[in-house]
């Protein structure tokens, strides 16, 4: 399977709240509003991981969501990219060492998962769009390779 040149121009995004405080979720929603309008890059929010090319995880993985996060990751068809949104998702942030937490997302997902870190507390919409640019760079590398 080879990726076409326009693959990265039509990324469909599924948003998973893996235990965040909702601040990052609100910033994600603001990227589809008229001010930032990511649809001009072909990015669309979809309602199910089956349609997604990019998974957005917000927040550290808590004990209740660990199974769901892994299942949603497996349900997404290849090729896929994971975007880790916010400091909590990347490092557990202010929830460091909490009893309710399983750990940051990169310790739980399979090793071959490609992660893109978007930092901030909460992240800025500009930074999310920058993360999308990094996803494009990664997908460009996949062109011509076996996926």
């Amino acid at each position, binding site marked *: 399977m080879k*990726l076409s040149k*326009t693959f990265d121009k*039509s990324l469909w995004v599924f948003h998973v709240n893996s235990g965040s405080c909702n601040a990052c979720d609100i910033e994600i929603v603001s990227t589809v509003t*008229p001010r930032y309008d990511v*649809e001009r890059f072909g990015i669309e929010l979809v309602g199910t991981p089956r*349609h997604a*090319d990019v998974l957005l995880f917000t927040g550290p993985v808590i004990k209740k969501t660990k199974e769901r996060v892994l299942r949603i990751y497996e*349900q997404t068809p290849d090729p896929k990219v994971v975007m880790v949104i916010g400091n909590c998702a990347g490092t557990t942030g202010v929830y460091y060492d909490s009893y309710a937490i399983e750990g940051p997302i990169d310790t739980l997902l399979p090793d071959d998962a490609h992660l893109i870190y978007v930092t901030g507390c909460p992240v800025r919409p500009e930074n999310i769009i920058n993360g999308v640019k990094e996803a494009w760079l990664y997908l460009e590398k996949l062109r011509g390779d076996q996926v």
Partner: protein
Amino acid sequence: MNIESILEGWLLNVVFIFLISFIGIFLGLLYKGFDRKISAMMQSRIGPPIIQPFRDVRKLLTKETIVPENAIEWIFNGAPIIALIAPLVALMYLPIGPFSPLLEGYGDLILVLYLLAIPAIAMAVGGFSSSSPYATVGAQREVVLMMSYELPLAISAITVAWKMNEIVGPETNPFSLQVISSNPIWGHVGLIGGLGIALIVFTLFAVLPGELSKEPFGQAKAKTEIADGVFVEYTGRNLGLFYIANTVQMIVLASLIITLFFPYQLSNLLERWIILQGPILPIVEMGVWALLVDVVFYLFKLLLIIYFGVSLVRVAFARFQIDKASYFYWVPISIIGLLGLLFVVVGATV
């Protein structure tokens, strides 16, 4: 007739079938792009480029295609193919611009109405077979909605055919789309009948978003409540086929409205105008240019109908609850349709 000429005609038909299918899919994706761009501009966004649907389909065809473990595989994979074939077949029966339909004489308006129902059924069957509870809810909603909008759709078709029967006489088939498109209905109905036909046009425009599962009637694939409904388990190629099927269905419905109510051609008017100018302009043979003008005019009509019937409605209204949507079709729209029928009948007798 010898074997060779039969074979030649047969080959030509096959070529035309592929050509029309290709044009249908191309136009569908193009107008989907227009629809997305226009609705983005109405929301004061920049919006995706016009060719975005082509990119989406191309991406979906390269993605992994997953069949869930509990799904009934052959129905799950077969539903998208049937959903795509039905509107493509319907396109063979519809006049496209100045060209008469390819399968003229083999089927008429009633067959097209049945073919229009098939994608909805295929979506429901695919949803039920995918074993997901979200898809089951979506499929139930799709079936409920289909049962609701079929009555107004049938009323509009019957009104036109009844009037056409009066115009062309009992020898000709009043349901034939070629007959309907060569006799524009507005000139024959008078004032009261004209009001009736306007109500029928309104009814058909109200059916348009329901038939396409577009926004006030997108309950079957409601993203935010039931996770894309019937399509929840569809991925890759299957989802791409459904995506194309929906856009072709849009072209078929808009073409049907054009055929029933706005079958005017620009080239006749243009020719008459050139003759009226007399000595000023040299009289030219229109020929190929007439066809070109008519095709461009047809594309423009398509754009207008998709703008008013799909894009504007999609941006202006939020999603109904399923019971309200069903009520909307059964009571107000059906009454408007029946009133239109009544006016046309009264207009004919007065």
